[in-house]
């Protein structure tokens, strides 16, 4: 299929349609408005498909919950403050083992923050985010093409593991334009998940619930969730490495920060510094085995994030005390340049005596 030039938000919308997304529910917030508008323009016109501009993010995520109850592929999107409001619903989706795709084009916080790109929702995304013991799969694309590809993967993962999947992007990814290729057509027939609730025709009635007065029953539900999470970790952890083979220093970065880091690494490589990149694509499950593999040959790590050091903790946990970890971060929606990051890298490189 030919490539088209598209902004990241719209690319998610188009990819979702091609993934068989039947329902989109959203509430406007910058920097993801192109997505809700894309769905209003394109999804709403498709046969059997549903677009609703909800009265709030709370309502939107609960509409997703309803659509998921009846087995439809459903999605919502927002940015940081709106994602906070969705946490109640995400916790219920996780508890009820209902698939859903949630896009967070995150922006600077805390509070209303700024509308500029930030990565400060890493903790919220990777630790469950709402109340209770649960996880969501978190995918972190770093290009418009990857936004499209991971959107399709998000729907498949959500259905396969009956779990909410978060696509964690940011304002830059959502709004920048790049060529993108869509590798599949929208399905002719909208998928309906097996075992969903559509009325007890020819079978006993079914219940979807989270509440129980029996803690032992709830404990069993939690155990079973975490058994599934173990499986997801084994089967679905993904990451990318870049110029890592001869590296003496490895930068760990995700999403748009990884994109900036690549530019910085190219700069310092030109000066003869042996620096590589490890980019987690699934933030949960975090590629801790990949970090453990890298530290066998590399002692120095630089975690670079557009926040005050959140993924940093996962890198440290994965290293189990091995290696040396430094951190560089810019919070609040400030976007560092590749040359700024190159300077940080080379300073560290020389300080650690790697040259």
């Amino acid at each position, binding site marked *: 299929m030919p490539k088209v030039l598209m902004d990241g938000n719209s690319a998610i919308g188009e990819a979702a349609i091609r993934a068989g997304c039947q329902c989109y529910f959203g509430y406007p917030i910058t920097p993801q408005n192109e997505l809700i508008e894309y769905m209003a323009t394109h999804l709403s016109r498709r046969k059997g498909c549903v677009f609703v501009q909800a009265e709030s993010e709370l309502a939107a995520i609960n509409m997703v*919950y309803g659509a998921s109850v009846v087995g439809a592929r459903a999605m919502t999107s927002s940015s940081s403050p709106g994602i906070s409001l969705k946490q109640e619903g995400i916790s219920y989706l996780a508890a009820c083992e209902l698939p859903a795709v949630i896009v967070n084009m995150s922006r600077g916080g805390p509070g209303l923050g700024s509308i500029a790109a930030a990565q400060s929702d890493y903790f919220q995304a990777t630790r469950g985010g709402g109340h209770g013991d649960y996880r969501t799969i978190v995918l972190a694309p770093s290009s418009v093409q990857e936004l499209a590809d991971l959107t399709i993967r998000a729907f498949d993962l959500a259905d396969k593991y009956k779990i909410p999947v978060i696509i964690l992007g940011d304002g830059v990814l959502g709004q920048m334009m790049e060529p993108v290729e869509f590798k599949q057509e929208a399905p002719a027939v909208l998928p309906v998940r097996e075992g969903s609730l559509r009325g007890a025709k020819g079978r006993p009635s079914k219940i979807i619930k989270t509440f129980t007065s029996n803690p032992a029953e709830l404990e069993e539900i939690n155990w079973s969730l975490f058994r599934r999470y173990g499986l997801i970790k084994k089967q679905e952890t993904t990451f990318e490495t870049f110029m890592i083979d001869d590296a003496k220093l490895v930068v760990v970065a995700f999403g748009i920060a990884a994109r900036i880091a690549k530019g910085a690494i190219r700069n310092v490589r030109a000066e003869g510094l042996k620096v590589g990149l490890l980019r987690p694509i699934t933030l949960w499950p975090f590629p801790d085995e990949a970090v453990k593999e890298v530290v066998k040959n590399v002692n120095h790590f630089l975690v670079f994030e557009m926040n005050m050091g959140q993924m940093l903790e996962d890198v440290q946990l994965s290293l189990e005390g091995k290696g040396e970890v430094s951190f560089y971060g810019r919070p609040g929606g400030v976007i560092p340049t590749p040359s700024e990051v190159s300077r940080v890298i080379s300073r560290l490189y020389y300080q650690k005596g790697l040259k």
Partner: protein
Amino acid sequence: MKKVYAHPKSLKRAVFHYCPGCGHSIAHRLICEVIDEMGLQDKTVGIPPPGCSVFAYHYFDVDMAECAHGRGAAVATGIKRACPDIVVFTYQGDGDLAAIGTAETIHAANRGENTTTVFINNAVYGMTGGQMAPTTLRGMKTTTTPYGRDHVIEGHPIKMSEMLAPLEGVAYIERVAVNSPANIRKAKKAITKAFQMQLDKRGFSMVEILSPCPTNWKMTPIQAWKWVDDEMSKIFPLGVYKDVTEQKSAD
């Protein structure tokens, strides 16, 4: 011999956990009778809320999906939009519908969602132990208004039927009570009509039920039933607040 009562098919044979004299059990039975009579058991999805009726799925023998406190109308929207052939009803208390879920309720009604809401107004938060509800009457003592609800501090009892009826998406709203055989018969008629509105795709329908909570009203069941007539229905008058049956259908 004429059969005057049978256990509804869509009501499971479980023992209700509700207190003696509680309106929830009557409301459950009425909904099940209506579902049976209208032949909806195999195409209905019910949405019970957190509240005393959180376990409603133990009683309704239809597909049931629990939802978060107050979000019933949004969940119903998602279900009905994704699958318009399903008959959807939410079952909500006054804390659920008229406090934490007010926004979802108003907007679902305003969008004219083809869904049915059974709204149990018992003037208190039953499940959490009898705190003030938005519908608590002025002067009424609850665990969080131990000196009686003072409208200067706590505001006035909120009248959801009156508030929602003017919205153009609303097809049918009636306030009924389940405190006497005559009222119970009327309540059943209202529930039937509400479901019919949904089947006819006329828009949002709601039946508000004044429902005794003897436990938290600190009354006997008989006193509670009487209190519905003497006090509650003075503030929440029974009757039809909206009915578009005679109007031309929008489509």
